[in-house]
Each structure stands twice: as C-alpha cells, then as structure tokens.
C-alpha cells in the first residue's frame, strides 16, 4: 500500500516536472476515485494537487510567467520532500510538505491567474464532484476535499449526473406525499 502511494506521488512529481499535463489530469481522476472509495484524505490531497497543477500548467500565460518558474522549483522540492518522508513512513510530515506545495500553488495562482477565485478552490469543487459521482454524500465529498457545499451543489447542478441515476419516485408522487404529510 505504501509503495503504491509513493509510486503515485513519484508519478505526480515526474508528470509535473516533465510538463505532462494530461497525465496529471489522468492521475487526479485515479487518485480521487481511490480516495473516495477508501476514505483516504492523503490521496484526496494528492488529487487536488495533481488537478491544480494540470490546470495551471496548461495555461500558456502561466507557463510564460517568470514567477511560475520560481513556483515550480518550490513545488517540486516540496513534492520531493514528501516522497522522502513517505519512504520513512512519516505520513504526518509528508502531508505537511504537500500542504506547503499547496501554499506555493495558491500563491502562484493568485499572482499569475486572471480570476478572483483560485484554481485550488476550483479544484476542490471539481474533485468533490467526482467523489459525489462515486456515491459519496454531499457532506462526505465536501469533507474529503475541503470543498464548499454551496460551490459543490452549484457545480453538480450543471452536470448531467442527475440524469444518470434512475428515478425512484417522480415529482408528482413526492408532492402527493408531501401534501399528505402536511395534512396528517
């Protein structure tokens, strides 16, 4: 299990270093699925980092910005540190290093990005929506990723997720039940 985790973090680091954006995106999807199925907060954090790095490094104006070069170096060093700590079974400090990487991602995003709402915040919503699609409740998906419930609801609302699930009771029937419950 630990070797697999280290392997995934190494893959994340390598994909980021080699600017393999779509690999980062793919990795984020795999990690959030695993995180959702096993209630793994550490993997959820990795998925957020992978997705944020995918989004940031996909943008030409970000890649060309000198501040990004600096941020990349810092992020890579924290990822390296996290890998080293995991190899020593030090999960707590490895998580701390990942959080330090997140700090640099957020800082780079706020300095370079064109949007008021940060990429890391948006990544939380995106990953939470994936977790919800894997069957987690709204609360559990939000908790695992740190996403805001309102943002998550709004995001889910514009997807086709609710067209996929079967209908148990339609509006008319539920409305009838509601009226019945009020008059009982």
């Amino acid at each position, binding site marked *: 299990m630990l070797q697999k985790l280290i392997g995934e973090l190494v893959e994340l680091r390598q994909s980021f270093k080699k600017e393999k954006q779509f690999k980062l995106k793919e990795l984020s999807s795999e990690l959030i*699925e695993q995180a959702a*199925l*096993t*209630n793994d907060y550490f993997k959820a954090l990795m998925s957020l980092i992978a997705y944020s790095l995918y989004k940031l490094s996909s943008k030409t104006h970000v890649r060309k910005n000198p501040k990004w070069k600096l941020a990349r170096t810092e992020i890579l060093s924290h990822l390296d540190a996290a890998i080293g700590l995991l190899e020593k079974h030090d999960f707590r400090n490895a998580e701390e290093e990942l959080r330090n990487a997140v700090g640099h991602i957020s800082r780079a995003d706020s300095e370079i990005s064109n949007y008021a*709402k940060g990429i890391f915040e948006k990544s939380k919503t995106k990953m939470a929506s994936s977790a*919800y*699609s*894997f*069957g*987690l*409740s*709204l*609360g*559990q998906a*939000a*908790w695992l990723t740190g996403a*805001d*419930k*309102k943002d*998550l*609801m*709004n*995001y*889910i*609302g*514009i997807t086709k*997720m*609710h*067209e*996929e*699930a*079967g*209908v*148990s*009771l*339609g*509006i*008319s029937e*539920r*409305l009838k*039940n*509601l*009226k019945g*419950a*009020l008059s*009982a």
Partner: protein
Amino acid sequence: MNSIVLDSSSIISISEKCFIKSFAGLSKKAELVIPKKVEFESIIKPIGIKEFELNALRIRMALKEQWLKSIQLTPEFLQLSVKIKDTANNCFLVDQKPFVLIQDGEAETLALMKQINASMLVIDERNTRMLIEDIQGLKSYLEHKIGKITINEKSALELKRLISGIKVCRSVELIALAFEQGFLDEELEKSKESLEAALYAVKFSGCAVSEQEIQEYLRNV
C-alpha cells in the same frame, strides 16, 4: 403542527435561488426545521466570507423571522446520529472494506427526524436519499460507477430499522407546493412558464432531479 426537516443541500438550493421567502407561507403549514449543524454550515461558517455572505444572510433572516427553526440534538439523539453514521458507513463494502458514504451532517439530520418525529425530510443530494429509500438502487448505481461492491446485509437491515418511516422529498417538491399555494406570488407571476423556471432553477442549484422528471410533471400541470 407537522414538522419538515431540511438538510444543508435543500437549504442551499432554495436560498441560492432566492426562494427563501416561500418559507413565510410554508411555515404556516408546517414547522420548518434545520439541525444546529446545518445552521452552523449555512450561516455561522460562511457569514463573513464575502462570496457566501448573501446566502447566509438570507437563511439567517428566515431564522429571525421564525419561518425556519434550528434545533439541537439531545444527547440521546446525538448518540443515535453516531449509530446511524456508523451503520450507514458499513452498508457497502469495496474489497471487503467499508465504503464511507455519509458524514455527521447527514446522520444528524436523520436523527433529528426521529427526535421531533418529523413528517418529511427535504434533501436535495442524491446519495443519502437513495440510502434511505432504495439501497438496492444505490448499489446498482455504485456498481455501474465503481465496479464490484457488496452490501453488508446486517448493516443494511440495521440501518433500515434505525431510519424506518422517514419520508423524503426534494426542494423541487417544496417549490411546487409553494407555487401551488401562492407562496411565490410575490416573486413570480402564476404561470406554467414561471413554475418551469423555478423548478429548473433549483435543479441547476444541485437538486437531484432529472430533466425528464420535470418535463413529466409539467405535462400534467
């Protein structure tokens, strides 16, 4: 008077689309209740964060006007909420390990239903609703999404016992009722077009209702 409990998902959908004033009329028909935890998540936590403040203020107004009440779980029912959460989170197994589905918030909402013997739960998110109503349907959905998953029959039976009798609707039904009863007359003209717009509005706010359901309902209105 009967009680209706709303969880955070339905409060979000309704307040986000400016339908909270419908609570003024609805509260004459039933006591509208949220658990204290939902009050914390919907008002106390987001108020002061500019992005979320407006919605929090709307919900706070509903509490102030007493269209909505916030109730704390008693120790007995807090214990029940822990049992509900633990049982629910043992209902499904993935690779023989429990699949954690719900958080404290959902469990406390279900426990509150039992504490106040509420008639109806308004919940917009799909997965907890399916856990309550159709655990086999949820299993089929999960199998389709994630592959092999098994039901822990003992936990499923226990959960059924703990939350037996809980009836569920969504914000779409609450809005449909409010519309019928004229509680949205200040916001919207009384027309099928307005009703359709209101139902789609909560759908796009995250209410787990399909387009097919909305169209089917409107055909018969």
